[in-house]
């Protein structure tokens, strides 16, 4: 059933606002993501930190650690986007009142904003404790923005698919692996480029083939593809 764009946007905005209102009351996702991210960051910095990471290898290894921290923090909190609606039986009311694609977009916007907040907290801390200089801060910010959105889009899509299944935790891990792997590879390469100030990577790396610009375009295409897939698939998995 097609809906006017203004109606659709109003519904998506209502879902986004409701998610944040609920989150600010319960602090579940924010606390889970921040606690997990900071704990991991402390462990990484204590074991590898500026004293432990050899300067020559820092720009190769540290981007991987940064994105692993973000991935696992996201995996700890974002799968609840739809699972919580099923567990608390609020999904029925949503199914009857909301346009599925608007609901998906509202949830995605919320997840992306939570991840953006997490990145705003974790990235400066990570750079500080690792004593890293960033020659291309603009590229890092763009990578975090596009990568964070892709992480949110992939997580929201998988969360929607698993919401009505049993063994949701296992399913999330299994399904999100192939969905998020291309994103993580691109994000890591772009973060390396931002840390190194040039275009690093081996001959087979996606960045080395076409430069950071091409990798960024690929990352944005990934974001668009996953969001489009979510908009197309969600009505099917959400409704009978």
């Amino acid at each position, binding site marked *: *059933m097609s809906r006017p764009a203004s109606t659709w946007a109003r519904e998506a905005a*209502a879902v986004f606002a*409701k998610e944040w209102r609920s989150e600010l009351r*319960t602090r579940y996702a924010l606390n889970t993501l921040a606690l997990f991210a900071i704990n991991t960051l402390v462990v990484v910095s204590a074991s590898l930190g500026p004293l432990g990471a050899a300067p020559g290898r820092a720009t190769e290894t540290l981007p991987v650690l940064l994105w692993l921290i973000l991935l696992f923090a996201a995996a700890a909190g974002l799968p609840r986007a739809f699972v919580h609606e099923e567990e608390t039986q*609020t999904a*029925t009311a949503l*199914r*009857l009142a909301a346009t599925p694609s608007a609901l998906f977009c509202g949830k995605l916007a919320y997840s992306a904003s939570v991840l953006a907040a997490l990145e705003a907290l974790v990235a400066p801390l990570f750079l500080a404790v690792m004593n890293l200089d960033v020659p291309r801060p603009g590229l890092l910010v763009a990578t975090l923005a596009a990568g964070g959105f892709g992480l949110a889009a992939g997580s929201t899509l998988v969360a929607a698919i698993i919401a009505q299944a049993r063994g949701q935790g296992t399913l999330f891990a299994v399904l999100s692996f192939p969905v998020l792997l291309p994103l993580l590879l691109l994000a890591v390469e772009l973060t390396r480029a931002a840390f190194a100030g040039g275009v690093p990577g081996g001959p087979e790396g996606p960045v080395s083939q076409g430069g950071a610009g091409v990798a960024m375009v690929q990352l944005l295409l990934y974001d668009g593809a996953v969001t489009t897939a979510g908009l197309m698939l969600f009505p099917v998995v959400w*409704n*009978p």
Partner: protein
Amino acid sequence: MPSALRFARVCRRFGRLAVLGGVSGSVAAGEALLVTGRNGSGKSTLLRCLAGLLAPDSGEIELREGEDAAPLDAAGRRRRIGLVAPDLAFYGELTAAENLAFFCRLRGFGRERGDELLRRVELPPDRLAAALSSGMRQRLRWAWALLHRPRLLLLDEPFQNLDAAGVAIAHRLLAEHLAPGPGAPPGLAVIANPVPLDIGETGSVAARLDLGA
């Protein structure tokens, strides 16, 4: 133009368990259909099929918003029905008013409509949904179901947990839904209950469907 609901030979299985085996019925505008049957006879399943929340394995369900109108598809039915059901829950961390305001915004109404219905069901607007008693939650379900002035009300054990005052409010709301007065089209309702039900002065149960004792 009067609305009408017609369903024919509706079947639904869960794995090997046949819950609905070819159920048929119809309701016209201004009328209510009372569905009775023992626990597990498929009353709630029938209502969820009618609501578009469950796809029947076979059979036909037609909700028309006028005599000459085309039947709505499942997505259309979902938006046009109001549901009161035991498994319908709200956001516990939001107040009753905030819950209704959220759904008002989704449905394209101002929050005044939610506030008005909270007054009608005599619920405190500022109490968190998680802190509502079971009877109060049932009143909130009634308010939620009527938020968008639906044509079809699907009521699954609609008087469950309500006190005498709550039952009287629910009777009044149902009567107004079925016969809203001049200028507004009459609604229709399907009421599911395990035992025959007294719906007070509504007096408009047009048909009864027994799914089995």
